């Protein structure tokens, strides 16, 4: 066994970066780059910085939702209520702000509080009542969307002030080189930065730990239930922020968030985050979200209707999970064949003695 002396010297960043490209979490960036190039073929305007910037901005809510889902999946759970949270928050904003810009800040605060509350409920039901997270969150989806539809009567309603809309729609004009930077991009960058920072903190490491091996973490005196509940809270807050941005261009309707949780899960899976928890990098999840969006845009240009989007997600999920399994099965199968071949040739030793005794 070769002894490698421990060293704190890390490989220089460029080497590390290149090495990581061979992992799923790293390869996603290559894929993203490739897809962006392909998209630029179909839509030459995209190579213009301003257009690219807008593209990133339009898809920012999806990336933000992916960030939220990442926390939950890293902890080993699922949050299927994100879509309902988005819809509920959008309706809330639309109806409470009205045309009065003074209401914007208080309503945003209220939305965050509601988001936290939903996260707490999801978390406690899953950890303390031991309901599997997909059932808890599907249940809260029903409850939330039931209320949302009830309050709106099923129809789009509410017309929030333009100032609020501007958060999602607007941006900084006349930026050198890039031209136009949507606010949503700024929000995304801020959130992604905060998320990366959070994952480096003890909380983030504990989160990964809980997804990796809950028993080990529990024996260290940490409370897995509280760690997982906070993951759900983060996820709901992410959905809330996405909702704030989406009011800007999606309009206020009770179905605006539908399906976002599945998009988020697909993005996270693409980013190489293990669905059982304990592995994966957060920025890869963001890259995964953009890979998905770029893919959909390409398909759009290629003539495939956007209604196929769920099918693309489903296919990605199945392939992303199935192919690695098939691959390892192939290896196991080969080992099995090899072993069978070798045992068949075991020669018979000389007749064994019946009693052997060692002095």
């Amino acid at each position, binding site marked *: 066994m070769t002894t490698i002396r421990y060293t704190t010297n890390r490989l220089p960043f460029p080497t590390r970066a290149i090495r990581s490209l061979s992992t799923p979490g790293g390869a996603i960036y290559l894929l993203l780059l490739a897809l962006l190039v392909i998209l630029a073929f179909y839509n030459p305007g995209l190579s213009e910085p301003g257009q690219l910037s807008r593209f990133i901005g339009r898809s920012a809510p999806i990336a933000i939702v992916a960030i939220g889902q990442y926390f939950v999946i890293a902890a080993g759970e699922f949050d299927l209520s994100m879509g309902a949270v988005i819809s509920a928050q959008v309706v809330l904003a639309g109806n409470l702000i009205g045309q009065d810009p003074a209401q914007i800040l208080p309503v945003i605060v209220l939305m965050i509080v509601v988001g936290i509350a939903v996260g707490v409920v999801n978390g406690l039901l899953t950890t303390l009542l031991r309901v599997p997270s997909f059932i808890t969150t599907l249940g809260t989806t029903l409850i939330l969307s*039931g209320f949302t539809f009830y309050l709106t009567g099923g129809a789009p309603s509410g017309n929030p002030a333009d100032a609020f809309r501007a958060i999602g729609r607007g941006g900084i004009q006349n930026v050198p080189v890039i031209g136009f930077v949507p606010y949503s991009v700024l929000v995304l960058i801020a959130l992604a930065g905060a998320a990366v920072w959070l994952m480096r903190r003890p909380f983030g490491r504990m989160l990964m730990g809980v997804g990796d091996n809950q028993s080990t973490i529990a024996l260290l005196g940490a409370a897995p239930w509280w760690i997982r509940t906070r993951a759900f809270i983060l996820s709901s807050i992410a959905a809330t922020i996405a909702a704030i941005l989406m009011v800007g261009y999606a309009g206020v309707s009770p179905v605006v968030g539908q399906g976002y949780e599945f998009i988020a899960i697909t993005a996270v899976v693409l980013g190489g985050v293990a669905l059982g928890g304990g592995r994966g990098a957060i920025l890869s999840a963001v890259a995964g979200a953009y890979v998905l969006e770029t893919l959909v845009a390409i398909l759009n240009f290629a003539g495939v209707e956007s209604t196929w989007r769920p099918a693309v997600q489903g296919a990605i999920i199945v392939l992303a999970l199935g192919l690695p399994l098939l691959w390892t099965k192939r290896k196991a199968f080969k080992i099995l064949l090899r072993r069978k071949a070798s045992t068949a040739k075991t020669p018979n030793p000389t007749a064994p003695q019946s009693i052997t005794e060692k002095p």
Partner: protein
Amino acid sequence: MSTISKDLKNSLLSSTGTVYLVLILVVIAGACITAANGRNFFAPGNISDLLTSTTVLGLVVIGQTLVILLGSLDLSVPFVLSLSSVLSAGVMAGQSTNFAAGIATALLAAAAVGLVNGVLVGLVKINGFIATLGTGLIISGYLFTNYRGTTGKASPELTAIGTATLGVIPVTTIGMAVCLVIVALFLSKTRTGLHLYAVGGDANVATMSGIRSAVPALVAHTISGLLAGVAGLVIVSRLGVGSPEVGTQGGYDLLSIAAVVVGGAILAGGKGSIWGSLGGILIFASIDSVMGIMQVNPYLKEVVRGLIIIVAVAVYARRNQIKIPARFAAIQKAAPTRPTNGATR
């Protein structure tokens, strides 16, 4: 205590017994609530409605029971249901000549999806939740793209079946009951059925006994798909048309899982019964019926459903996990003279 009376005691207190007990309580409560509002829970019209809504959910629940017994899940059910409805109505196009073709197309497609799920879960060994989520999403993409709103038209034969009744009981409900009995027999009288329990209960024990876990997975998922297809046909028989959203609107995925759990099954697999699931369906149908009579806003019904599902799973998940008794409980039992406080020996 003789083992016979112990068996009896066990089955009365068993999950299935409890489910029906709860059902009776729910019905009584429902009858009281509706009576307090001047309505009759047991009115023939209401019973008929109740049974009708039980039929579609029932078919789906039978399939979901099989899958959950295995320790897996089927989340593709709403989409298979919708698919079956649009395919059958589309092919039939109102013509009698297309009756058989319509049915065949729908059922074949449904069974095919089930088979794919079975392969993913049983052979590739993807987690059932994810695999069926994926296939469900794929089908939904197909549905959204090719169908907008209701489509097609049922053959007169199908509509006739859909509206026929035997007294108060719709013929389709009888059909569901027949499916239920067939599957119950499958579970208790075929090797594959028994093996399903084994694989779901403890895959290692099953493998040690030489059972190939892929077979029950394939069978369970294919039947689930097929029954979801039949459920789609029943919907077409009543609505007269197919619709790409009828499955998702009904929330059949979550409802079926909830009914199975309420019926006494454990999500980890290996424990549960068709009859218990039936009880679960009736409980939900009764609650729905009461809410309908009370003219509760349909959106608020959703809220109530969500709450009940969570509560049901929480309550049932808290029951004793399947576990062989801990080896060291014997030390305590074997030594009754052991001091229970800090007293000296």
